């Protein structure tokens, strides 16, 4: 199991993006810890179920997450959840305010607070990406289709890398300490044959208007070897 985190403050459209993306890729699992909290009421039970849910997954899981709240150091959590990329949604302040004002969950639209949360979120995302050496993609796209396209590119890249890693680990290769310098200098048999062939091909010539001699033809062949 490995995860890609879709992060951003409340109201930037993490869930909307993830759900729309899953129409294209229904094979990918998605979840947000907030949904577990909502379902199980207390944090302890939610964490336990969260762990169970992740342990059942075999492939990619998209996780929606806030970085502006909760503990400062999430490195261990991200490592445990095998995070391969962070996708940070960071639209304009006006967009966030507008979305929050329309939200039935009565989220704060205090502009000062929104700006501070966005900065905190970005700061934490940068630190995590650096510590874990994973890509951080920041999207400011207002257009959902473009955001889906960008997320799709990130997922393709991560999935390809995972596929290559698996293939690399399963390789069963024979290794040798082949010394190329020796190869070039010691093939007496080939040199003897070349010497024996040369006078014979010199006698040949193609009967055609181009008057191409076989010797020259062989020299072309050597160019392409």
């Amino acid at each position, binding site marked *: 199991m490995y995860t890609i985190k879709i992060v951003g403050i409340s109201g930037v459209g993490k869930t909307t993006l993830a759900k729309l993306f899953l129409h294209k890729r229904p094979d990918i699992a998605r979840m947000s810890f907030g949904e577990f909290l909502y379902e199980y009421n207390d944090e302890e039970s939610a964490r336990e179920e969260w762990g169970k849910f992740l342990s059942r997954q075999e492939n990619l899981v998209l996780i929606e997450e806030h970085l502006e709240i909760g503990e400062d150091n999430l490195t261990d959590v991200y490592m445990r959840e095998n995070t391969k990329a962070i996708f940070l949604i960071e639209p304009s302040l006006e967009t966030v305010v507008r979305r929050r004002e329309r939200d039935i969950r009565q989220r704060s639209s205090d502009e000062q607070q929104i700006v501070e949360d966005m900065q905190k979120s970005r700061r934490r995302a940068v630190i995590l990406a650096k510590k874990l050496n994973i890509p951080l993609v920041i999207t400011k796209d207002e257009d959902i289709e473009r955001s889906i396209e960008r997320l799709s590119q990130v997922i393709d890249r991560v999935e390809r890398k995972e596929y290559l890693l698996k293939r690399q680990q399963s390789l069963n290769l024979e290794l*040798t300490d082949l010394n190329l310098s020796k190869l070039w200098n010691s093939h007496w048999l080939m040199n003897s044959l070349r010497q024996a062939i040369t006078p014979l091909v010199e006698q040949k010539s193609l009967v055609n208007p181009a*008057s191409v001699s076989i010797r020259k033809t062989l020299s072309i062949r050597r160019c392409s*070897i």
Partner: protein
Amino acid sequence: MFYLTTFDPGSITQQVISDAVDEQYLIVQDRLLNAVSSDELAYIFRGLKKFYPDLNSTYRLKLIWKNTKLVAVGEGREFEVEFKKVETEDKIITLFTEVLHYVHQERSQGDIFGFYFKGDRYPWAVETCESGQFIRPYKQDALIAHGIDPERAVEITRLYALPGSPLNFVSVMDSFIRKYYKANGMEALLTCTMPSYSKSRSTTTSGGLDKVLCAKQLKHSFIPKEIKGRQCWMMATKRWLEENQYQGEMRHTHRFFTLFPKVDVFTTIQHRTTLNPLPGLNGNVIFFK
């Protein structure tokens, strides 16, 4: 040379060599005279005649940059050279792959590039490039072992260069190709070499492709073909045999004829996959049988 490897080295006499030359000569002659018109042949092999100023095997030109133009120059001669994609439907490619090349092979599945003298219809040097699934599986494994995504690797085949081509065309063409694929997000270029037949190291490593990707046991296969009432043995690649599901009679490189493995060499043009090479590769070469 290839055909002689089907004999036990201890049994190769002057007569065997002479017969092999006669036989392979017949094959070359048959291909050339049946598939190419005399005009085409004259045009393509004009470099062998000593009086053409552009392609001339005696007085070869050299590629240089003059302002922003690539030109072939030498002893008062100067010709503008164009590097461009060769149209895959062009007859010239079939001519190269199926007739003129020493090994019959299928048409390239990727890009084909050529050097042209400005205004010419035919390129005088051609390289084919294939990537991803068109790279043979064992080479894909070797690339992954080296931390390179095969989808981002390009295999170059130096398909053909006409006689008398400018001296440094391989490295100039490779640098064009490198630039082209780097701009297209590719990570590595690779090419196959056969040290057994190389007369110098530069034949193999020109164009900066100087890291060993893998080595593979070299074995040639020949199938019979009757020409002018004589049975000749024509070389067939493994790919050709597989694609044509050939089940007939064959001759292979003799088990006592020691050939050096063929060696695939590569160069990294940029690193994007961020896959680490396998640690055991340090100082070792991947070997396939």
